[in-house]
């Protein structure tokens, strides 16, 4: 399932608020847009929740394949 990107979700939400603020919608249409807006707002908020940080080094292992190795941050910048 293709997830909508944050920027797209935010833009769509903006547009929906604009449409609702301009008035001129039937009650049916307004309700539909409102529901869509609630869902988009949820997607955006979720994306901004705090998750675990993930910093990796891209290295080649003994077999010559690519591998991700978690970075020990105390070592970076010494």
């Amino acid at each position, binding site marked *: 399932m293709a997830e909508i990107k944050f920027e797209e979700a935010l833009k769509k939400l903006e547009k929906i608020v604009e449409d609702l603020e301009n008035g001129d919608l039937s009650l049916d249409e307004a309700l539909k847009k409102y529901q869509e807006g609630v869902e988009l707002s949820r997607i955006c908020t979720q994306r901004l929740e705090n998750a675990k940080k993930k*910093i990796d080094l891209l290295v080649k292992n003994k077999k010559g394949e690519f591998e991700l190795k978690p970075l020990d941050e105390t070592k970076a*910048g010494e």
Partner: protein
Amino acid sequence: MRKNTRQPDDLFTPPEDSAKSRRIYSVSQICQRIKSVLENNFNDIWVEGEVSGVSRIPTGTTFFNLKDDSSMLKCVIFASNSDALKFELKDGIKVICCGYVSIYEKRGEHQLYVQQIEPKGLGSLQLAFEQLKQKLEKEGLFSPKHKRPMPYLPSRIGVVTSLSGAAIRDILKVLDRRFNDVNIIIHPAQVQGEGAKEEIARAIKNLNIFNEGLPSGQRVDVMIVARGGGSIEDLWAFNEEVVARAIYNSKIPVISAVGHERDWTIADLVADLRAATPSVAAELVIPEKEDLREKTADLSGALARSFLEISLSFQESIDDLARRLKLSMENAVKLNAGKFDSAGKKLALLNPEALIQRHKKEIADKAQQARIRLEHFLKLKQAEFSGIAAQLFSLSPLNILGRGYSITFKMPEGAIIKDAGLIKAGDTLKTKLHKGEILSKVT
């Protein structure tokens, strides 16, 4: 000295018997001698001139000529000395060369064996920079059309830089401050010195290759190629063609951050976005999470508010409509009740029962009149008939009356009597004679 003995090493000693014998040298001997003289006298010299006739052979050796208004000197740079040539040799460039003169015996040509070479008036690094910049610009590597847009909120950021040094430290610090859980992949690379340009180019390529193998939700969507500040020699790797091409060919958009506030490196020109320093790159690459949170909250609030307003206004409209509907219904009922009464009254007036009765009476009356008239008419006609019959009788040629016969009529009807039995006492009779009539009463 022995007769007929040649001393080939000693060119400057006149032969013993100059009158009697010629000194004859081989070509090699002469050339050898020339070589010595040249190498002893033209060692470590600097020569200035204009470059022409440049040619490279597959082994990497470069041949060219140095010339001025009236003379020309053949030159050669061996591949082993190619480090000396930091820029591209082109006809017309004015250069200063350092080297030694010798003779290439096989062809009998003397040439300058160049060990150092500098463009006249411009540092060779600068010239190299200008040449590469023009070449790549012509190819379109700097074209704005090729530059890719940056993702608004990247899900994973790639970084190519040295693991030691300030650049990586600064980048990680700023990224953490702005968006504390962003995903980062670092591909370490040397950023100066021998081999740096290859390592940087390879790191960019490797990130691209690795990215292809990741599922689409975990891919790097932008990369920063960075190093801290330094001298022009320190950051020279970022002016190299191999790095420029790696950036151009990268499918992942590239932000360059070469730590020089003012000047742009070739890498900066090719990159999709240029940052003056690694910290700035980290700021350009991702928005602040708090900003986004605020924006989202604002929009959610506006969403709820505007929908509420719409609902309320619809509610008002509905209430108003309901009220008006009730009112008009009540009016309609009143109006119709009145109409109903008056219609009923009119209807009652129009009842045909009375009319029918009236007509019936008229018919009966008329029928009675008709009957009376008919009776009367019949009686009249009867009398007329009788009268006519009597006249006919009296006028008939037979004229029975003239013979004494008579007609008797019953009066008042005037009916002709033929049967005496029909007469009763008291009846009035009229007897018509041939002449005159007799009226009589029966006794």
